[in-house]
């Protein structure tokens, strides 16, 4: 198995992320997943949006595409459909994926196109300095919610499931040993896969919400994340403040680029 650093553009390190930012942990997990599956480095494309997390594409030694805010999934859809032999991995932030890119996210899932979407969920807009995202929990503070967020966050995993994703998993930066496996399974799934990776943003989220430094935020993750089966056994009041991790959903449905290849066969053969 190749070492994960072989998948980095090490000449571009150290990266731009703040001390203790979890993005590096999640990026490393993606590289480990790729190493584990021994994907062809020349046939794997990383597509990201805009945000701190989306800067990860620049540090990964593949064909990499740093797109526009919210648009990673439709760019990735084009790459995959144009050349279905490529493995396409999407890196996106919570705002990128579920606010400005929300429509693309559900439509990618609906099409079940073979993309592996790794959602770096830090519950905030990191890059722009801490504004509320659709995944900021109710009553948590943000620069644009100085009195606390009024509305409810999405559960991106449930959202993806309702929209038709065929593999959904959640992990955390604390559970960094498990995360590569969750991502690897997503890459293996021939269809739309979502891996929600919960990750600390100590600077733009933790500080404002008095969650402590990065180690403290990671500890909090270790306490609130519960493996899916154990989580299911908890009474509703025990589930308060906790969330399930692991593989949350798997299903089968025709993958878009495969299905479209049948359209091509029929059309080339003059059939409808």
């Amino acid at each position, binding site marked *: 198995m190749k070492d994960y650093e072989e998948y980095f553009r090490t000449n*571009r390190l150290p990266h731009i992320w703040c001390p203790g930012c979890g993005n590096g942990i999640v990026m490393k997990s993606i590289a480990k997943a790729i190493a584990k599956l021994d994907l062809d*480095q*020349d*046939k794997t*494309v990383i*597509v990201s949006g805009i945000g701190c997390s989306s800067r990860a*594409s*620049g540090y990964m*030694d*593949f*064909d*990499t*595409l*740093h*797109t*526009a805010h919210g*648009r990673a999934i*439709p*760019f*990735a*859809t*084009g*790459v*995959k*459909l*144009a*050349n279905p*032999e*490529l493995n396409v991995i999407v890196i996106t932030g919570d705002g990128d994926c579920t606010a400005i890119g929300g*429509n*693309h996210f559900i*439509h990618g899932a609906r099409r079940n196109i073979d993309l592996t979407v790794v959602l770096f969920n830090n519950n905030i807009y990191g890059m722009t300095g801490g504004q509320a995202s659709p995944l900021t929990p109710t009553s948590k503070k943000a620069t644009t919610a100085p009195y606390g967020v009024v509305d409810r966050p999405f559960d991106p995993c449930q959202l993806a499931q309702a929209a038709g994703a065929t593999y959904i998993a959640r992990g955390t930066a604390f559970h960094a040993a498990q995360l590569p496996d969750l991502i690897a399974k997503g890459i293996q799934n021939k269809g739309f896969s979502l891996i929600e990776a919960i990750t600390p943003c100590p600077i733009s989220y933790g500080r404002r919400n008095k969650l402590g430094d990065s180690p403290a935020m990671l500890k909090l993750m270790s306490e609130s994340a519960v493996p899916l089966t154990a989580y299911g056994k908890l009474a509703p009041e025990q589930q308060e403040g906790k969330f399930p991790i692991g593989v949350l959903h798997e299903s089968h449905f025709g993958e878009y680029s495969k299905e*479209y290849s049948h*359209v*091509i066969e*029929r*059309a*080339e053969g003059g059939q409808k």
Partner: protein
Amino acid sequence: MSQPKLMQGNEACALGALAAGVRFFGGYPITPSTEIAEQLAEQLPKVGGTFIQMEDEIASMAVILGASLAGKKVLTATSGPGFSLKQELIGYAAIAEIPCVIANVQRVGPSTGQPTSPAQGDVMQARWGTHGDHPMIALSPWTVRESFDVAVKAVNYAERFRTPVIILLDEVVGHMREKVVLPADNEIEIYSRRQPTKSREEGYQPFTPEADLVPNPADFGTGYRIHVTGLVHDDTGFPSGSPKITEQCIKRLHEKIDCVKDEITHYDEFFMEDAEIAVVTYGGTARTAYAAVEEARAQGKKVGMIRLMTIWPFADKVIKQAAAKCKALLVPEMNYGQLVMEIERAAAGQTKVVSMPKYNTEIFTPNEISGAIDQLLSEVAK
């Protein structure tokens, strides 16, 4: 040569793109451009190509850019509101140098405006719709057959200069049916995208410009592992905050188009040898203008016409020459007066430039233009 066939401008545009090698289309339905999508949904898979209907125009633009980077020649088509939505990613294509063609069949705006009515109101948006400094190529056909030819040119230019190219149709040309004879495949000149000539080991950098100032970023999946970003970047493709690199990056984008400006400026001149006044026109309006000018000539009036196919970059030289010899230029357009501003700029006070705007959903009649010609002739005779 193939048999004459009755078809719409939109259909000819789709077939032209196909003939030029477009193998990927992403779009979202909108009148009056939808026939382009419908045509390609049918035709593309027959030649192993891909059609996809996306969730909106932003996604349509994104999906073609992804496909282009993976090596396909790509097209999207839209109208008014959809063209507005595409603007951010048209800028992305400009700075990241991703070949792509956008067909915009213009309708009356702003906003939903008059959805099925013709207009030429997106001329300036085609140039300046996205933010920041960037060059633009926009071509506007005036016949059904030329919709085919313009599509071929657009695809070739997009690939050759690695830039977005806009086909500015209008509802008149897009929906008009004419009998056309399309060129045979061997009569069509096709530009194939350049591939890298060096390996990574030999020092290949994806955004190092060649002699023509156009770089050769490798298609994804070919082993070069390049990085593509919408941030200002240096030759390596990676972002740079340096003022020098920023200046170089933006300057080269402009210069790669500036240096071929004459070559890609396409226009027709009619009756210009001894013209006292000239009608400067483009797109569907040029058809009516031609009828009026032809009639004026039949009556012995010294009227000429310049029909611009290339809207951007703007045909400064052509207009400057016309301004030097004509006593007035008449500019009918289906908008509040847009390209006339460029014509005034290029004429630089050498002659009188008269705007003839129309924006009430109705196309010009030959009589209207004849009337304007006569009035102008009498004014310059004084």
